[in-house]
């Protein structure tokens, strides 16, 4: 969105300059955009790296960023992109198609990173400086969404002459901010990119992300003026934050949804009636009220409303104790059973959810114990499927449901259907088909069928959709979070 900025940075006024401090519970892990999965890393390097496309503010589509336009061949296998001109890396070198080819090839070649998004790509070519040609192995409709992902961001060719490791220690990109320093575990600071192609941006002089693990400390730092933005304050603190005079609280629509996951390798969760009974027994309204303090909506699908092809009409199971008992009676364990909920210690949502579930399931004769392990161990146990019932959530990275759907319902995709071992051949077949379907109506049909079947199979208990909460100083303006979780700091200004 060019030209809409009111003035250049040099023209003064309250909006120009300033050092923004963002406080967050966890530090970034790495700046390697092709490998890293942590949001706290992604949100930082996205201020430095830009891709050919970017997600639109509503999260449902993509628009060109470093690309200007594209054309798709009739066989739907060859994509030709024209690059934006006049874009420079922060080291002064101009961005060319060679850089794009280098970047995409690197992104595709990683192992255990985000390369799965690029599996359909057969080759990347750079016929001239301003043109990039991508060939896919088969028709692949999510390609633009995939290219918009940060792992496909454009880096300088050959890492500007550095080694891979050295490059990521002080990365170079085309973005509005440039690398300054990182005290691991404490803070990362980025400085304004003075030669940013979108003239007049950014307004800020620098951005610092500080690690403040304690919820309250983050809040008081906003109040005390030591920080301006608090990344994801817990919902429980929103009420008191709203009461503070110079603090603003925003809830940005998100693609976040929470699930109760049930491991079908463990008896009796292989029994669909048991899963349904549990799904029915979850009082989602009450959870939204107590856990989210009303800031959310019950989930009816494993996809979220801000994702394309979400089906609002999916008959997700809703709270109904009578039906839950009926299902229980039909199941292999009509008199109940005992089970263990795997929870992360220190995670207040997990703790509360576990306790709520514990008391609901009691009515079904299910004796649920809570096993608290620390988050790291909980992760492990989930991924190794050494659990019976547990909690997890998902946030979209791209503007296409394929990423999540594959992950969640295709047991061969490496994640054993979100670590539940859910395996429904019909659903899997529909998923594959949807990847190669280009027309919107066709895809909608397939994805609706998938959502419906998954809900019916109750392979997970869908809980609720919740927004991204942010608290920030009233001095901050122009701050917006996209449904995929990322934000653009080039539009942010700091008043005095």
């Amino acid at each position, binding site marked *: 969105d060019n030209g809409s900025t009111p003035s250049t940075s040099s023209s003064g006024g309250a909006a120009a300059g300033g050092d923004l401090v963002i406080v967050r519970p966890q530090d970034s892990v790495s700046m390697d955009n092709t490998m890293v999965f942590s949001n706290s890393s992604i949100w930082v390097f996205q201020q430095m790296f830009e891709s050919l496309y970017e997600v639109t503010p509503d999260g449902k589509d993509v628009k060109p960023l470093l690309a200007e336009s594209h054309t798709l061949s009739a066989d739907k296998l060859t994509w030709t992109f024209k690059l934006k001109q006049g874009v420079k890396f922060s080291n002064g070198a101009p961005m060319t198609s060679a850089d794009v080819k280098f970047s995409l090839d690197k992104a595709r070649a990683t192992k255990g990173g985000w390369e799965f998004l690029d599996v359909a790509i057969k080759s990347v070519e750079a016929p001239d400086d301003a043109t990039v040609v991508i060939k896919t192995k088969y028709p692949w409709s999510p390609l633009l969404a995939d290219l918009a992902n940060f792992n496909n961001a454009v880096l300088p060719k050959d890492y500007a002459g550095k080694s891979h490791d050295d490059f990521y220690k002080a990365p170079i990109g085309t973005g509005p901010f440039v690398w300054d320093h990182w005290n691991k575990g404490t803070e990362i600071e980025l400085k304004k990119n003075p030669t940013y192609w979108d003239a007049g941006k950014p307004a800020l002089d620098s951005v610092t992300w500080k690690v*403040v693990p304690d919820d309250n*400390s983050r809040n008081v*730092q906003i109040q005390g003026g*030591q920080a301006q933005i608090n990344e994801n304050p817990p919902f429980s603190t929103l009420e008191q934050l709203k009461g503070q005079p110079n603090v603003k609280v925003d809830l940005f629509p998100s693609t976040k949804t929470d699930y109760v996951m049930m491991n079908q390798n463990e008896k009796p969760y292989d029994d669909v009636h048991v899963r349904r009974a549990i799904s029915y027994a979850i009082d989602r309204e009450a959870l939204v009220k107590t856990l989210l303090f009303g800031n959310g909506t019950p989930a009816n699908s494993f996809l979220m409303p801000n994702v394309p092809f979400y089906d609002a009409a999916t008959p997700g199971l809703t709270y109904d104790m009578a039906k839950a008992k009926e299902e229980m009676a039909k199941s292999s364990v009509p008199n109940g059973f005992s089970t263990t909920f795997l929870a992360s210690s220190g995670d207040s949502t997990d703790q509360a959810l576990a306790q709520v579930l514990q008391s609901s399931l009691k009515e079904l004769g299910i004796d649920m114990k809570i096993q608290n392990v620390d988050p*790291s161990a909980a992760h492990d146990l989930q*991924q190794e499927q050494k659990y019976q019932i547990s909690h997890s959530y998902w946030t979209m990275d791209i503007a296409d449901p394929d990423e999540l759907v594959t992950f969640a319902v295709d047991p061969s995709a*490496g*994640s054993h259907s979100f670590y539940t071992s859910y395996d429904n051949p019909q659903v899997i077949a529909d998923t594959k088909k949807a990847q190669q379907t280009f027309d919107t109506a066709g895809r909608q049909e397939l994805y609706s069928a998938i959502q419906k079947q998954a809900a019916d199979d109750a392979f997970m208990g869908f809980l609720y959709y919740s927004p991204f909460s942010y608290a920030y100083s009233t001095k901050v303006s122009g701050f917006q979070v996209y449904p995929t979780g990322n934000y653009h700091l080039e539009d942010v200004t700091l008043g005095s």
Partner: protein
Amino acid sequence: MRHLAYVGRRLVSTIPVLLGISVIVFFMIHLVPGDPARTLLGVRATDEAVAALHAKFGLDRPIWEQYLSFLGRLLHGDLGRSILYDTDVSSLLALRLPATLWLLVAATVMALLISIPLAVLAATHRDKLADQVVRAVPLVGLGMPTFWVGIMLVLLLALKVHAFPVSGFGKTPAQHLSSIILPGLTIALALTPILIRSLRTSMIGVLDSDYVVTARAKGLSHRRVITAHTLRNAAVSSITVLGVNIAYLVGSTLVVERVFALPGMGTMMLDAIFNRDFPVVQGVTLVFALMVVAVNLLTDLAHAALDPRIELA
């Protein structure tokens, strides 16, 4: 010179202790379920990626072999590399150590500033009202969880009165100083009850002793009797108490740093534990252990400096 040799000997004699500690730390942390690679690589990590990371940090080798290489590196002063941050543990420690040291020193100084006058007041007004009050009030402090005190102090002194920064550490020494006051006070408040009582008790013992009576018989002023003849001798026994408790409070930096968002070793330790960053946990514990050893050593030196009867052997 005599003291230097002693310090040398003491440091040498802590080597077996540190070795023992390294064994405990190493095996304990490896007993904990959880895999740093999976934590690091996230939900979509492939088995190959995990294996690659394991290989990089030697996590795929038998545990005793890992220990030996850990020891080998330790002998060269190399604490290993953080798995999470892919940085030398020693450089991480160098970043974090200052805040923790500031905190401990501030806490100790404040504890002394609070305790000494109060203990003197109590001991010289023995069994009077002042004494009763001075003895009773810290008892309340004894039962207060440090993190809770921290929260309350932030609420009262930082947010309501705006006297101090609410948390963080600042950039310049002056900012460090103002940032460290509240957390230091939090720890000091936990330290004072014990310190006041021990100092008061030993002062009473000293005040009753013949040499203080002698000093009074000499006709010296009350002030001189207290400063020259009482405090130093009372400090002799209290210094050990102080040492033991500072060592104990090194542990409470874990919580206090968290409450006050200080970028110290305590927060790093908690993070590292949560992320199974073995090398960092090992490094931090070793440094913590070294700090305790150093505090004990300083205690002994101070003890010897205060009391000529002590032979450093």
